């Protein structure tokens, strides 16, 4: 008689997940990055969503990923630094999470140190100032739960839970976080019109002689509203946070941080890698009068000698109006992205 284990008999094939790519993204951009070794499935995404909101990933079961990456804030943090489970604070503002599959070079975090979403998800769990756990302990907790073993089995064909499968599932969920229905998107689809202020603000944004924001932050032809590259944007004369420079070891990269997307700014304050600006007005003032010269300042900060692009009060209001038109309330209210 040939005996087989129960597990071998029950082969479950996960259902491919149909990623809903916005029409503008499909027509204007190359395909999103979907790793072959972690294809999106219904089961993987559902599992990843459950894990994203699960406080058992932290050492004392009080914090989940969502604690610092709050869906209401476009998956960002609404204070400069996040507080970990032990009451300690980090030194970087938790970045918003959306359109991550279109970060083509897959360098994540402000300093680009995380090379893929799967790798990024490994870090906060074991970081002592964040979730302060260890992956072995997390795996044990999930294995002991009544629901997770079957969910892992269905998603990955194995109920043996480990950090690899946990982070794969979380990455799958994160790749589904797509934001592409702001007022400006609807304008580009000819579904609405811009106010004169928003239009004037857009013109300032795209004018090399005025704001010249487009060289780093995209345009109507690049709906990501970021180049996902690293720039020193004149925040400090002597950067104390080296940013990319601390990752590469190259002093020419000191003070360089990844251009964030300008989508959803109404939800993602405070701004910059250290959350130093609590309002958009402060951000605009920085680029208008507050640029600081340093050795590695980006050549695109062309007006640094004058302190910045010198916008008038009306121009600042118009630019802000345009930037706010990039915010997508549908994204933050999407039940598929909430617990």
């Amino acid at each position, binding site marked *: 008689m040939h005996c087989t284990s129960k597990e071998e008999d029950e082969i479950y094939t996960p259902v491919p997940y149909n990623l809903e790519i916005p029409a503008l993204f499909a027509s204007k951009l190359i395909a999103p990055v979907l790793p072959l070794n972690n294809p999106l499935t219904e089961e993987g995404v559902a599992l990843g969503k459950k894990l994203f909101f699960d406080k058992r990933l932290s050492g004392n079961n009080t914090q989940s990923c969502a604690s610092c990456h709050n869906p209401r804030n476009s998956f960002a943090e609404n204070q400069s630094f996040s507080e970990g489970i032990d009451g300690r604070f980090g030194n970087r503002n938790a970045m918003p999470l959306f359109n991550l599959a279109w970060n083509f070079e897959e360098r994540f975090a402000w300093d680009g140190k995380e090379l893929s979403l799967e790798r990024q998800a490994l870090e906060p769990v074991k970081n002592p100032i964040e979730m302060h756990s260890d992956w072995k302990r997390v795996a044990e907790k999930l294995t002991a739960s009544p629901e997770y073993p079957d969910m892992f089995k269905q998603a990955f064909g194995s109920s043996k839970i480990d950090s690899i499968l946990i982070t794969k599932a979380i990455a799958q969920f994160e790749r589904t976080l797509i934001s592409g229905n702001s007022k400006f998107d609807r304008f580009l689809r000819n579904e609405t019109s811009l106010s004169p202020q928003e239009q004037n603000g857009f013109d300032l944004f795209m004018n090399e002689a005025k704001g010249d924001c487009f060289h780093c932050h995209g345009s109507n032809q690049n709906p990501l509203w970021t180049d996902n590259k690293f720039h020193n944007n004149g925040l400090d004369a002597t950067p104390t946070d080296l940013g990319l420079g601390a990752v590469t070891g190259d002093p020419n990269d000191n003070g360089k941080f990844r251009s964030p997307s300008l989508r959803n700014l109404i939800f993602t304050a405070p701004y910059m890698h250290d959350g130093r600006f609590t309002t958009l007005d402060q951000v605009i003032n920085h680029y208008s009068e507050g640029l600081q010269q340093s050795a590695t300042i980006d*050549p695109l900060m062309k007006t640094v000698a004058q302190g910045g692009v010198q916008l008038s009060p009306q121009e600042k209001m118009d630019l802000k109006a345009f930037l706010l038109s990039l915010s997508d309330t549908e994204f933050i209210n999407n039940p598929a992205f909430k617990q």
Partner: protein
Amino acid sequence: MKRILFLGTTLLLLCSCTSSKKDLGTNVSVHFSHYWDSIPVSPTDFNSLKFTTKNGEILSIENLRYLVSNLVLTDVNNKNYELSKYQLINLGENQLTIPAVEVPLGTYTLSFVFGFSETQNTDGSYPDLNSVSFNIPNMLGGGYHYMQFDGKYIGENLAPAPFNYHAIRAVNKENPNAIAFQDTSFKVDLGVLVLTNATEIEIQMNIAEWFKNPYTWDLNELNTVLMPNFEAQLLMSQNGKSVFSRGELSQ
């Protein structure tokens, strides 16, 4: 008799295979290399104020990427073999090579267009170029940059200052009611070459030429906000015509 038929058939097959193989041609790839006059330039040379222009400014390179299009080999019968419809060359990211294309052996002239010609320069049409933010604003006619070349220079005030040498289709906005465009892309002819085997063609950019020939470029005068500067775009186009040359032919 059967043996003769068999041998004859075999011979025929061998001959046809040989001629088919010859007709299939050979692989041709293209590699762009960069120099400052005779000194090779690579990403390791970036961010260092060490290149001196004809006008005497010392500059650094922090970003250099440019578009080449219609890279073709034209045979003696004026038939074109396209090596690349378009390619973004990015020195800083070592994106310098155009993949191999199969071309029949023979004698050709090599040419390409720097930038996009007017008919190709359609706004938003190229997802790969949109994805790397190579677009031109609608207020300047849309379409794509020909080149983004950014860095710093030591000018008259002896402090490093930024430059953004961005080449685009020239826009004349003197009359806001009648904006005029001038196609400042240009064809680069790189002469005759003979393909006898698999070949890598080297095309060289002499970066220094952007600043000297025929117009001696003064970075103190022309440094940033050059995209809407009609005259500057014409000068870039003129200077660009002596920038490229053919290097090694590796067969």
